[in-house]
């Protein structure tokens, strides 16, 4: 077999270059070393001096051509015109070429070129071009998909965004629609393709090419649709994927590969990748000089890269919910979950049960704090003075930005359920709304339970009366917040009277929802405060003109520890 004819006979490279000429030269020499002819198109915006230097630097290579220069601005016809011109030269001057591979100066061959040549030689009639109808692709930028083909775009998207948008809007309003010639079906896809001589020449020599050209000249981003659409007319076999690994971010700009992507790129088994950062020396070094890597004849497998980059897009557009930091500060209402993980808020439970916090911690394995917003200090679990993340228990630091305090706590303890108590004495003004609107919050309220510590206290009755009036007023307003139509937390409210009739069922529900230990029943119950005489206490308040009503109805003389046989009525908001 004639070595020279076999070598590289099949594949010609069309290379579009506009910058980083030293890298383009390096890659070109790499292609040429395997015998691939190359046709260059250099952007007209490149200064003549740089262009001439580039031409000179490659003058020792045998099978290369340069074609007339077009201005290649992103999203414009120039890129297609450049590709057409270079392809024509390629087909005309290199009759041995069977596949034409469209590449750019920032493309880097990852596998030995011979492998690509062999791969294509085994598939002599296959066109590798990503080509999908507009309805079926998710990657349209700027909300334009089929409108790319039916509107006009005389203004630059990059330089004149305002006019671009206004003109699109105007055309939509007057119902303007361009006619698509000859009933072709617009397809879109990656601009980096590899077409067979047959298909490419059919496109370039089409008798209607003038019609298509003048139509696509005014389509938006024609380099992603011209060949993709017309290949459908002539191709015998289309593999709708690009052999060039190229990832795009959410703005439609290509991701860039750096030195630290070396292993990732190696494992992708793709033939060519773009875009490579021009100064990524290690990548160029590894892929262009180290040719005797294992010859794995496997199909390209960009799956891992796909996952990493789609995660990156998600990080950029959705971020980590519940995180507030210097480059992520969602405006109010832009985010559904205001914190990063579910947490539980208990109101009145530690007043009614003597050992509620320790009991809850034992039952659920969650971290149970006391009153985090107590006036004196943040009562962290186990009496700690600093919590995870060096969060201080100082009331002043906490009150300086209470919401940041809470979101920090939840963020810092990711992976561990947080529970805490609040009550009408606490400094929660200003964040009640945030908690109530946070779907991550599970709020359980026994209303009126604040009266129990007063009932047990040894204060003068007039003081008790004043405090009771204040606490009742505060709690009533708080309950209004919780019951508001905007609250999104999981909220349950019982009156004290309701709750003590049958405390086990609500407790079981709450604990099941926290859901660490799914037991059939509660192994142990918390110890309820002794309420003998509580009814009389409330009556005394009434007699003093203060009307306690949030705790429900307590008969003056009744043993409250005796459970009744009526069903409790849990109050569930959403």
């Amino acid at each position, binding site marked *: 077999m004639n070595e020279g004819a076999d070598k590289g006979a099949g594949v010609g490279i069309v290379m579009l270059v506009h910058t980083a000429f030293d890298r383009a030269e390096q890659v070109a020499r790499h292609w040429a070393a395997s015998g691939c002819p190359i046709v260059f198109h250099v952007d007209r915006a490149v200064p003549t001096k740089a262009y001439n230097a580039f031409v000179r630097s490659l003058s020792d290579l045998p099978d290369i051509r340069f074609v007339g220069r077009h201005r290649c601005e992103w999203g414009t016809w120039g890129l297609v015109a450049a590709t057409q011109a270079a392809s024509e030269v390629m087909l005309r001057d290199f009759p041995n070429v069977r596949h034409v591979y469209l590449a750019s100066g920032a493309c880097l061959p990852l596998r030995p070129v011979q492998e690509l040549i062999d791969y294509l030689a085994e598939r002599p009639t296959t066109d590798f071009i990503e080509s999908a109808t507009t309805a079926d692709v998710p990657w349209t930028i700027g909300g334009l998909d089929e409108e790319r083909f039916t509107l006009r775009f005389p203004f630059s998207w990059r330089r004149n965004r305002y006019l671009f948008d206004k003109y699109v809007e105007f055309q939509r309003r007057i119902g303007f629609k361009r006619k698509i010639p000859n009933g072709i079906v617009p397809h879109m896809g990656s601009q980096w393709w590899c077409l067979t001589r047959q298909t490419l020449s059919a496109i370039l020599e089409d008798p209607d090419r003038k019609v298509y050209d003048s139509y696509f000249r005014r389509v938006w981003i024609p380099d992603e649709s011209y060949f993709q659409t017309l290949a459908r007319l002539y191709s015998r076999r289309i593999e709708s994927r690009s052999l060039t690994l190229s990832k795009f*971010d*959410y*703005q439609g*700009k290509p*991701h*860039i590969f*750096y*030195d*630290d992507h070396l292993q990732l790129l190696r494992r992708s088994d793709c033939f060519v990748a773009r875009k490579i*950062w021009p*100064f990524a020396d290690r990548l160029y070094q590894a892929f262009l000089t180290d040719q005797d890597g294992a010859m794995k004849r496997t199909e390209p497998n960009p799956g891992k890269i796909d996952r*990493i*980059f789609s*995660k*990156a*897009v998600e*990080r*950029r*557009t*959705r*971020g*980590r*919910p519940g*995180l*507030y*930091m*210097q*480059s*992520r*500060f*969602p*405006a109010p209402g*832009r*985010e559904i979950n205001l914190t990063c993980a579910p947490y539980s808020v208990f109101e009145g439970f530690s007043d009614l049960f003597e050992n509620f916090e320790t009991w809850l911690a034992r039952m659920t394995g969650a971290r149970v704090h006391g009153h985090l917003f107590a006036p004196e200090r943040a009562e962290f679990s186990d009496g700690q003075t*600093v*919590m*995870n*993340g*060096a*969060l*201080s228990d*100082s009331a*002043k*630091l906490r009150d*300086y*930005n209470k919401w*940041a*305090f809470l979101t*920090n*706590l939840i*963020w*810092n303890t990711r992976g561990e359920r947080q529970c805490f108590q609040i009550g009408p004495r606490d400094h929660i003004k200003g964040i009640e709304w945030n908690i109530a609107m946070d779907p991550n919050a599970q709020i359980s309220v026994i209303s009126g339970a604040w009266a129990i510590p007063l009932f047990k206290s040894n204060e003068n009755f007039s003081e008790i009366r004043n405090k009771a009036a204040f606490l009742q007023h505060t709690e009533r307003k708080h309950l209004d917040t919780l019951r508001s139509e905007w609250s999104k937390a999981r909220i349950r409210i019982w009156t004290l009277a309701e709750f003590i009739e049958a405390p086990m069922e609500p407790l079981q529900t709450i604990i099941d929802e926290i859901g660490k230990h799914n037991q059939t029943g509660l192994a142990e119950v918390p110890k309820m405060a002794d309420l003998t005489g509580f009814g009389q206490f409330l009556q005394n308040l009434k007699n003093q003109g203060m009307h306690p009503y949030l705790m429900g109805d307590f008969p003056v003389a009744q043993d409250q520890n005796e459970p009744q046989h009526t069903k409790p009525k849990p109050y569930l908001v959403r």
Partner: protein
Amino acid sequence: MVWRTEAAIRYRQRWKRRRLLYRALRKRRQLTPVIDRTAQIRPDDILAVSSVRNESARLPFFLEHHRKLGVAHFLFVDNCSDDGTDDYLAAQPDVSLWSTPHSYRLSRFGLDWLTWLQSQYAHGHWCLMLDADEILIYPHHDTRPLPALTDWLDRTGRQSFGTLMLDLYPKGPLGTQTYQPGDDPMQTLCWFDRGNYTIRKQPHLQSLWIQGGVRARCFFGANPRRAPTMNKVPLVKWHWRHVYVNSSHALLPRHLNRVYDEDGGEETSGILLHTKFLPEIVAKSAEEKARREHFANSALYDDYYDALADNPDLWCERSSRLTGWRQLEAMGLMSRGNWV
């Protein structure tokens, strides 16, 4: 009506910016060139500007770190150092140095001088404004130099890059640690507070106001509002019209302060490792308290200096130990955004 207030704010900010530029223009006479190597600056170079006073201990590592990242030229203003800082800087091949005996405080804490230098030399360059005790890191900084970052910022249409200042401290009393010039300060200062930052928005400048960290925890518990601002925008594609408003926390025009996403996404951001708490801080605090050059209302910070001069231990059992940028990124102190 909203647009009218908005327009009024914008108008006032424009005049404020012009006033600050004019101030810098007047203050240029306070600067005396010591050595001017600015002819070395090439069009795409990344520059760093800084004003220093007695930083000979920190500068060797500072220069080494930022050189390695890809800063091509450093512009320094020396404000009456007497520990050899000026000679050391003048001997560096990639440093241009000016000196001034005038007041740091009256020059808006050095900003007037630096604004002048930036307007002269940084126009069209990516420019870092750092203090000598700030070490810039960002996601992938160990494998991707600064030009990779600035190229990418250019491509995504951003002109500024936001950071959080992270106060580092040792375990044990501050003054009893050891540090030799040129050492990596992160070997001594390897602890930080990871989750006690508070953020609010400053609508007038459209910037964030982040406070917290170890200084808020240890020194400003009684008056958190006075706690230092922890967010900075140190890296900006400079235009001679730009001007920093207070330290490098915020700039005019305001759009440069939008280094954060308000729709729930994460912009790429970095961290300034703050090496303030090297052992010399204890001695320096007494001196700074007397000089009254660091705060507009210095008397309010006497307690702070007293506490520092007392050789405190800032470490607590919930402090985190610094291991690298990936750790900081995972903790949410900075973000790679979609720069992966």
